[in-house]
C-alpha cells in the first residue's frame, strides 16, 4: 500500500481518534483544512462528540474500503450495511445529521436525511408528532385553517 498517512481527530469532548488520511478526507471540511495547512495535529472537531465521531469514522472507513474494492457486487452489501448503520436511536440519528452537515460528508448526509424522511413519510400527523415528540403549537383556529388548506393530502 502506498503511504498511509494518518491524522488524529479530536472530538469535542477531548477524545482522540487516529485515522488514515484517506478516510478523514471523506469529510470535505477536514480535507479543506488539511489542504490549506490550517489544520493542527490533532485536528479539532468541535461540535462533534466522541460517540458520534466514532460512528462517522466507522462510516467513512467502510465507504473508503468499498470504493477501493474492484468488485461491484459490494454495492448491494454496502446498501445493506448502510441500512444497518442508521438503525440507531433518534438522538444519535439527528446528531449524525448535524455532524455530516458540519463535516460536509455528502453521502452520509444523504443517507441520514433519507432515513428521517422515510420515517416521516408514512405517518399521519399525530403519529409524526408522537414519533418525534413534536409539539403541536397551532392554536385551534390555526389548526383548522391549516387542516383545510391541506385537505387534499388527507383524502
Amino acid at each position, binding site marked *: 500500500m502506498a503511504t498511509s498517512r494518518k491524522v488524529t481527530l479530536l472530538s469535542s469532548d477531548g477524545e482522540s481518534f487516529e485515522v488514515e488520511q484517506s478516510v478523514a478526507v471523506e469529510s470535505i471540511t477536514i480535507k479543506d483544512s488539511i489542504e490549506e495547512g490550517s489544520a493542527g495535529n490533532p485536528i479539532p472537531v468541535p461540535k462533534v462528540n466522541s460517540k458520534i465521531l466514532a460512528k462517522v469514522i466507522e462510516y467513512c472507513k467502510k465507504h473508503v474500503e468499498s470504493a477501493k474494492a474492484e468488485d461491484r457486487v459490494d454495492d448491494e452489501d454496502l446498501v445493506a450495511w448502510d441500512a444497518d448503520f442508521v438503525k440507531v436511536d433518534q438522538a444519535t440519528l439527528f446528531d449524525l445529521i448535524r455532524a455530516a*452537515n458540519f463535516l460536509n460528508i455528502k453521502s452520509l448526509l444523504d443517507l441520514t436525511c433519507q432515513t428521517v424522511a422515510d420515517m416521516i413519510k408514512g405517518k399521519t400527523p399525530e403519529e409524526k408528532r408522537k414519533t418525534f415528540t*413534536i409539539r403541536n*403549537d*397551532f392554536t385551534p383556529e*390555526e*389548526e383548522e385553517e*391549516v387542516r383545510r388548506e*391541506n385537505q*387534499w393530502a388527507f383524502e
Partner: protein
Amino acid sequence: MSSLRSDPSSSRVHPAPLLVDHFDRLPDPLLLLIFNRIADVKALGRCGVVSRRFRQLVPQVDAVLVRVDCVISDDESASPAALSDKARNPFASFFQAFLGNIVKPLQALGLFPGAKRAQSGPSSSSSSSSSLAVGSERDGEMDQGGVTHHSPTQVLKNFNEIRFLRIELPSGELGIDGGILLKWRADFGSTLDNCVILGASSVVRSGPVKNLVGSENGTDAGCANDDNGSIPESFYTNGGLKLRVVWTISSLIAASARHYLLQPIIAEHKTLDSLVLTDADGQGVLCMNREQLEELRVKPLSASSASKRTLVPALNMRLWYAPHLELPDGVVLKGATLVAIRPSEQSGLKDMADGSWISTAFEEPYGTAARMLVKRRTYCLEMNSF
C-alpha cells in the same frame, strides 16, 4: 382517519425533560434537506399540519413527486355520435376511426380521494393513506359533479420553490394488447423537440441459451437472420407497417396531450429546473429541462384544433426494424422497431447523425435495444403536422 381533535397531548407541555423534539436541534436548511427527500406530495401535505415550523417550511421544498390517482380521459372517442362531430376535420376523424380504441388522450388530471365516490362522508382511514395506489379507478364517464378532485395544479399551489417536479400517472394512456411492448420518450419545449419510440410485437424471455449466429460480432449479436437490416417484404403486407404507424401516432398524441396539460403548472412554477411526466407502467416519459421550460413560458404552445393537445409539428422520422432482436440479458424482441422523431425544421440545424439522444432515451435493457437497432438499415419518413 383518526380524528385530530382527540389527541390529548396537543395542548399539554411535555413534562418529562427526556422527551425532546430532535427537530429543534436542526436548523431550517437541514430540515429542508429532509423534506426534499420525502418527495411524495401528499406526505408533504401531511407534514404541513404538524407544527408551525413544518407548515412554514413545506412550501419551500424543492423536489416533489405527485402521484396522480386518476385521469379523466376523453371518452367521446368511443361513442359513434362524437365521430360525426369530429368529421369537421377529416384528418381528425381518420385518427378517431384508426386509433379510437388505442389512445385515450388525457383531458385532465385529478387526484381522486381514495374510497370516496359519490358520497361526501369521511373516507376510511386505511385506504386514504394508500389511496394513491388504490384510488386508481379510472372512469372516463365520471363527471365532476358528485366527486371532489384535486388537480396537480391546485395541489402544487402549496409549493413555491419547486425545482424538480416529477408527476406520475397511474398508467400509460395507450391501451395496447397484451404482449406488445411500446415505450416512448419525448422532450418538449414550446413544441416537440424530439421523440423516441421503441416497440415490439412481442417480448420473449428466453432462457440462457443464446443464438450462436452473429455472436462473434459482439454488439451485433441477436439478429437471428443474416439479413442486411432491411425490412422484409411481408412487413408491408401483413399489417406490420400499419401497426407501427399507429404506434407512432398514438405515442405522439399521448405525448402532446400531456404537454398541453402541463401548461398551468409550468406557468406558475418559475423555479422549475426539471419536469418529468411519467406513468406507473413505464410506457411514456415526457421531459422538459430548464431551457425548454423557459421556452414554453416565453413562446406559448400552439394547440391542435380538434382536441386538447399541443400541435405536433411537421416531422422527420427515422425508423429501424429487426424481426428478431436478442438482448444481452436473453430477452428477445420480435418485430422490434425504433423510431426517432424530430421536427422537420430542426433537422437542418443539427447533424442527424448525432444519435446520443436516441441511445439514452430509455433505461436498460431498452437502451441497449435502441443502440442495437440504430445499426441497422435506416428508413426515413415524413409526417405532416397534426
